[in-house]
């Protein structure tokens, strides 16, 4: 079987002829090419024609001094394929690819806002992630950016205007959801343009919890960054740390011991169970089903307790670290985890039955917020959202990490494409997670749980991804030989999924907006970073 590199090289040679650029490795099993900006769009188009599952993972900008390097990370041919282009710093311009992949929209806007690279065809006024008070033409992720002090920023306070209506459509009522709203647990603003009870459009405004984690990572050591990225999201913290550690270990060439990899898997799966259970409760609340909320959160409590006795903390685990994990698991603890999860498994048929047969739940969720398979591919959605639309992608299988290549499990997919399917898929995933943990505890190898890693990381770069509870989580880390990374790029699953909400909200009832939205399992502290 041809390696990934050869496969992509053959494809590029077919498409571009003799002047095809040479494919080079970026990390284990991941490749990149360096091309002229003019070739970018053609290559993306060719890849989409070759592999229908091709989607954009992220766009990273790196300041190289005189030039800015823009990387399009594509999910294609079972690998991450990075296309590098260089643009000048004075006039950074690139052609947009949103006509090929509409899902690239927010990724491009983020690079425009933070890095100053303009994508022709996808220009916008104001800011995307930054506050409106932030000065124009100041791009914080550039190395030479002057960061204004907070005193300067609060001198000109931001006035959020009256809700703007769609030009020429003044008759529509604008309903603002957020930044503070009972349907949102975290601050973000969505403007619904409503005619009667029907939504005709949504204007999102992100960035209310932007904490500049990517920039902050550059000024901290790798070990400090482990704690920092863990705090990007409270719910899927294990996945953030795992991805970051994998990237750094990749640059270092560290092999994590087998026992450490298995324990990482267990922590990640406990994380997934509690995240999915949390969503069930949240979804119940959104559709006014308080009883469901209270029931699921009671059952979730057992998982939280397991996380606490395994890692020492209920929420931010501080468990996974560079080179392995921090704490070992004892036989008593193993039994406790097994019995508690067995109890949880006995509760699951109740929830499955509820989602399949309960009338008022079905009335609210069935057929609501449709994302067809074609749209899901175009919008580059990830995780349960993609799988509920029949797109069979799961990083645990496609690109195994930790111990997932040694543990048997199934990818659950549904073809209903609606909110109900997106919730049902999570019930089934909890089953799978319980079985994964059981298997991992059963086959837990002996040996050390971690290896020591040096403080300084040699120059290099790596991309890494894991399947977080909400979908594929992607990290790009560039090291420059010092104790701090040169660049850390985080692309969270909600950031990839949020555009699908704008898409599916069109034409649905106002009352359907919360259940449609919550079925994405949105996490805004992830989105904004």
């Amino acid at each position, binding site marked *: 079987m041809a390696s990934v590199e050869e496969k992509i090289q053959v494809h590029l040679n077919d498409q571009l002829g003799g002047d095809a650029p040479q494919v080079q490795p970026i990390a284990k099993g991941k490749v990149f090419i360096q091309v002229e900006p003019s070739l970018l769009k053609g290559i993306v188009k060719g890849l989409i024609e070759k592999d229908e599952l091709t989607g954009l993972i992220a766009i990273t900008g790196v300041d190289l001094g005189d030039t800015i390097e823009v990387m399009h990370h594509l999910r294609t041919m079972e690998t991450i394929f990075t296309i590098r282009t260089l643009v000048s710093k004075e006039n950074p311009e690139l052609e947009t690819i949103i006509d090929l992949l509409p899902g690239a929209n927010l990724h491009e806007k983020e690079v425009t806002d933070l890095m100053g690279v303009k994508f022709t065809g996808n220009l916008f006024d104001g800011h995307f992630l930054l506050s409106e008070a932030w000065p124009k033409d100041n791009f914080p992720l550039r190395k030479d950016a002057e960061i204004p002090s907070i005193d300067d920023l609060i001198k000109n306070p931001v006035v959020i205007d009256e809700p703007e209506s769609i030009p020429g459509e003044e008759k529509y009522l604008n309903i603002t959801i957020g930044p503070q709203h009972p349907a949102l647990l975290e601050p973000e603003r969505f403007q619904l343009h409503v005619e009667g009870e029907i939504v005709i459009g949504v204007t999102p405004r992100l960035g209310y919890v932007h904490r500049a984690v990517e920039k902050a990572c550059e000024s901290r050591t790798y070990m400090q960054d482990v704690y920092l990225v863990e705090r990007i999201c409270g719910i899927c913290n294990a996945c953030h740390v795992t991805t970051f550690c994998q990237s750094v270990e990749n640059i270092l060439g560290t092999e994590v011991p087998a026992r450490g990899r298995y324990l990482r898997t267990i922590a990640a799966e406990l994380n997934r169970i509690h995240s999915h259970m949390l969503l069930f409760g949240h979804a119940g609340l959104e559709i006014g089903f308080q*009883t469901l909320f*209270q029931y699921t959160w009671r059952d979730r409590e057992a998982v939280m307790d397991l996380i606490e006795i395994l890692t020492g903390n209920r929420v931010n685990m501080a468990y996974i670290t560079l080179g392995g994990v921090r704490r070992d698991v004892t036989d008593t603890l193993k039994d406790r985890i097994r019995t508690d999860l067995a109890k949880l498994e006995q509760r699951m048929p109740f929830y499955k039955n509820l989602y399949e047969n309960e009338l008022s739940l079905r009335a609210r969720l069935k057929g609501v917020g449709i994302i067809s398979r074609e749209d899901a591919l175009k919008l580059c959605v990830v995780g349960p959202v993609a799988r509920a639309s029949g797109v069979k992608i799961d990083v645990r299988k496609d690109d195994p990490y930790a111990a997932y290549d040694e543990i048997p499990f199934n990818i659950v997919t549904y073809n209903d494409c609606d909110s109900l399917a997106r919730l049902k898929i999570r019930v089934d995933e909890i089953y799978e997670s319980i079985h994964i943990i059981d298997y991992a505890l059963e086959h837990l190898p002996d040996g050390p749980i971690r290896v020591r890693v040096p403080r300084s990381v040699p120059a290099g770069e790596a991309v890494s991804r894991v399947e977080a509870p909400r979908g594929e989580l992607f990290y790009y880390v560039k090291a420059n030989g010092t104790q701090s990374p040169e660049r850390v790029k985080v692309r969270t699953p909600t950031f990839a999924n949020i555009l699908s909400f704008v898409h599916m909200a069109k034409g649905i009832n106002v009352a359907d907006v919360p259940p449609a939205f919550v079925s994405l399992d949105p996490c805004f502290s992830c989105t904004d970073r």
Partner: protein
Amino acid sequence: MIMAIDLTLIYRVLVFPGFVFIFVLTMVCDWISRKIRAHMENRMGPMYTGYHGILQPWADFIKLLAKESTSPKATNKTIFKLMPLLSFTMIMVAMFFMPIDGSNVIPGSAFSGDLILVLMLVTIANFFLFLAGWSSNNPYSKLGGSRVLIQVLGYDIPFFLLALTPVFLAGGVDPTTKILVLSFTSIVQGQQSIWFVLLIPWSFILFIIAMQAELEKDPFDVPDAETEIVGGLETEYNGASLAFLKLGKDVQVVLGAFIIVDLFLGGPGLAGGITATAGILDFSAFLFTIGFVLKVVAVVVIIQYVASLWARARIDQVLKWNWKYMMPLSIGAMVLSLLVAFFWNGLIHF
């Protein structure tokens, strides 16, 4: 003699079974609702104020009264402030026509059409709620207010139709005009031998569903769906106005329970029936009240039990269910009840 009658009347209006009694009963029913809801959801509910939190509704009400009351800039302040009070007043007026201790709050105020009057007052109270939401000049309030109107006006039709079914069974006929009497007194008196719930259970079940919609309880609590429209029509209210909006809602629940008890569960008294007169210290009146309160509490428990079993429906689903199922079913229930009434009255009364 005239003096004494006046004192009795004042006592009846202000204390028992007037304002104080209704107020206390409302607070107790609110507490029971919250406890039922909490225990259905695996929670404790209020625990710290009084025995198992029985004083919590009082604490909430007093706290709201103590808060500063403001109104938004661009509103008609008179309408904004007045509507919660008017809505509350309508419900209280309706309360005064319910035979609580065997007779009405104001003895002798019952007349041959008071059933229609009470149902109409409830509708008017809801219309005032709509005006309260509309006058807030806030998109959430406006949507909430219009949802109240859409939902309640829609469900009023099956609600009225079903409220008529016990009238057929009671079969009270005005001696002079020879037409059916639409009064609570005649319905309650018709239930002396058997509660109507046993004769026409289908009407009772449909009436509970319609009542659930009228009281905006799950699955029909669309007008205050907090995840869609924040506080609904209450969004801009605070302080005393909010206290009265909330109190009005709670009293409405009790009134709904009163209506169900009178129409289907034999009215006041443990067995059924009604007294003609009532004094201040009448032992039979006391027994009647005990029976009535027990039945009302039972109905409140049913309403809250049903509410915690369901998710909230969508406004278009609520309306669709009304026109598609509730309307034909209630007309069918009416026809069926007419048949039952024919045999029942034909065999026993005539």
